[in-house]
């Protein structure tokens, strides 16, 4: 895994503490283009906190973030966006009172030459991309609170896809979804991967990890247990890492 040139993202020796609690303790992980890396661990293991340092929601206390080998500073979500990092949050960061188009373009509105937001243009673009991602989507005029979990998820994903993310962070993207919608997201991940995006996938479901990810990094109590190639290990190996913090024998970590 180390002979593929410069990683797309490298998180080196990241630490972050809240009060006296070390939520993330000297963790290093990396991600290559066209790769899906799963992040696993119990609730409170620190995986969401780690990834929020990359998405700009939190600031790391120490360590470095490298994008394409270049050191970057990510202080807020705007910095992350500037690096083409897009995040799909577990809690679906959508404004419930706005419609799909307003949410999709939130923070990056299309404007007319006079500098006013161009709602018609944004709706047209939204219709285009939703036609690709979720052809059954119809509720373009309604606030997103009127949408189902899957429809809301597709709005969140459309946002990441539309703006040509290179690095995609997905925090349990299928947690609130039914089987059909989960399948839709799985197919989408495969498609994005084929396009050369790097994807961090925070996931609880081991089956999804085995199916979707190339590598899996397991965290426990803020520390990295290890990173394994998914096709070299079994479900039980990964479970052992999550529960016992034990690295599987005979596997390069």
């Amino acid at each position: 895994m180390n002979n593929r040139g410069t990683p797309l993202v490298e998180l080196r020796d990241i630490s972050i503490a809240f009060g006296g609690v070390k939520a993330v303790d000297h963790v290093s992980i990396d991600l290559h283009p066209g790769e899906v890396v799963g992040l696993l661990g119990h609730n409170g293991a620190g995986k969401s906190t780690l990834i929020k340092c990359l998405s700009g929601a939190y600031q790391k206390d120490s360590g470095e973030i490298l994008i394409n080998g270049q050191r970057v500073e990510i202080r807020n979500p705007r910095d992350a966006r500037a690096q083409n990092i897009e995040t799909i949050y577990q809690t679906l960061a959508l404004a419930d009172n706005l419609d799909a188009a307003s949410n999709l373009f939130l923070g990056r509105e299309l404007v007319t030459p006079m500098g006013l937001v161009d709602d018609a243009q944004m709706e047209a673009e939204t219709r285009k991309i939703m036609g690709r991602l979720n052809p059954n989507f119809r509720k373009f005029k309604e606030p997103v609170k009127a949408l189902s979990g899957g429809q809301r998820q597709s709005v969140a994903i459309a946002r990441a896809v539309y703006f040509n993310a290179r690095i995609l962070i997905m925090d349990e993207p299928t947690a609130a979804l039914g089987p059909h919608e989960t399948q839709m997201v799985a197919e989408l991940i495969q498609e994005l991967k084929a396009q050369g995006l790097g994807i961090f996938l925070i996931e609880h479901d081991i089956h999804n990890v085995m199916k979707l990810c190339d590598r899996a990094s397991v965290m426990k109590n803020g520390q990295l247990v290890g990173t394994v190639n998914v096709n070299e290990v079994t479900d039980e190996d990964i479970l052992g890492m999550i529960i016992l913090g034990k690295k599987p024998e005979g596997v390069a970590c």
Partner: protein
Amino acid sequence: MKNAAPQTGQTQIGQKKPSLLKSLEIDTRLLGMIGAFVLICLVFNVITDGRFLTARNIFNLSIQTVSVAIMATGMVFVIVTRHIDLSVGAILAMSSAVMGVLQVQLLPHALGLGIGNPLIAPITILGGLLTGTLIGALNGWLIGYQRIPAFIVTLGGLLIWRNFGWYLSDGQTLGPLDAHFLLLGGIEGTLGTTLSWALGVIFSIAALWAIWQARAAKMRHEFPVKPIWAEVTMMGVAVAAILGLVAVFNAYEMPIGRLKRMFAERGEVLPEGFTANYGMPISVLLLVTVAVVMTLVARRTRLGRYIFATGGNPDAAELSGINTRMLTVKIFALMGFLCGLSAVVAQARLSNHANDIGTLDELRVIAAAVIGGTALAGGIGTIYGAILGAIIMQSLQSGMAMVGVDAPFQNIIVGSVLVFAVWIDIQYRKRTGEKL
């Protein structure tokens, strides 16, 4: 607005003919408020034997509403972002004190411009607007960057700013005011009939153009549009409303004593049988301008979009890269600016500055915004709703005074109406929410 009246039932593509209201795409809440307003007017008109709906009373009602209505438009943004501003009345008083001192003492005497100098009014107004904006920005900074709850910051401001104004003006009532400044108060500054009609026509054309543009934009992207008869109906209603209001203002005749005084000032004698009508008050024109600009800000600018997004989900807004702290400063600075503007209108209407100017305005302004459908939970509210809310409150108050309702009952009724209006709104949302 994107979040206005949920369009219920659109998901089922049935063969049913769309209802009249749906074809017109009218906000049913707006319709309800207009209905309530019309009812209030008719009831008072009957009780007062037709004195309520006279040109004179409508004129007075309008100029009394302007100050609160201007501030209510700003309060919509504040409440939409889940904040509150209890200091608007105090900021108004402080701005008014600054303007009073400027135009009565500082500019004409200390700086030697002399009474009646045409520079006095613009400098005074600038001073008032600046005072309001700066205080608002300070509020916003304390709330956005220092994370003190808006309720506390502005509750403190309620005590601080009115008394700063008191200190500044030595507690004196300041007057008489500059003659040009007084034009912004209402009765002293009207456009006359010809200019009012001209403006009415211009506004009508602008309204027609706006409706047509919206339709054209939809057609460009091949979105469904209203049937043409519905567009024409809306255009007709808009033009009738604009020209109707102008007609009412133009119907108000100036009293003979005032005409005599005006001619006497010019060294002339009032000709026999000469009459003149007031026309549109400048302060009302100011309110219309504020309403149009604020609506534009709410619906068609990034600032407006961010305000509503932040109100709907502050975390989502922050994660979408919106600088919500700076946004808070902007919202409160805008609120402060509008308080300064209201101070101009209020002071000019009362023709002096006194310490108690704008007392309890914070409650009127918040009530107007809330009656107008602004949800305290955030994310929902309209500019026209807040203005209509202010008009409804003022009509109730004026009407009751006219009928001779005892003072305690006036407040009891206004308070009850506020609670009742919010209850109705909750029921309305429940009902439409179920259909979604």
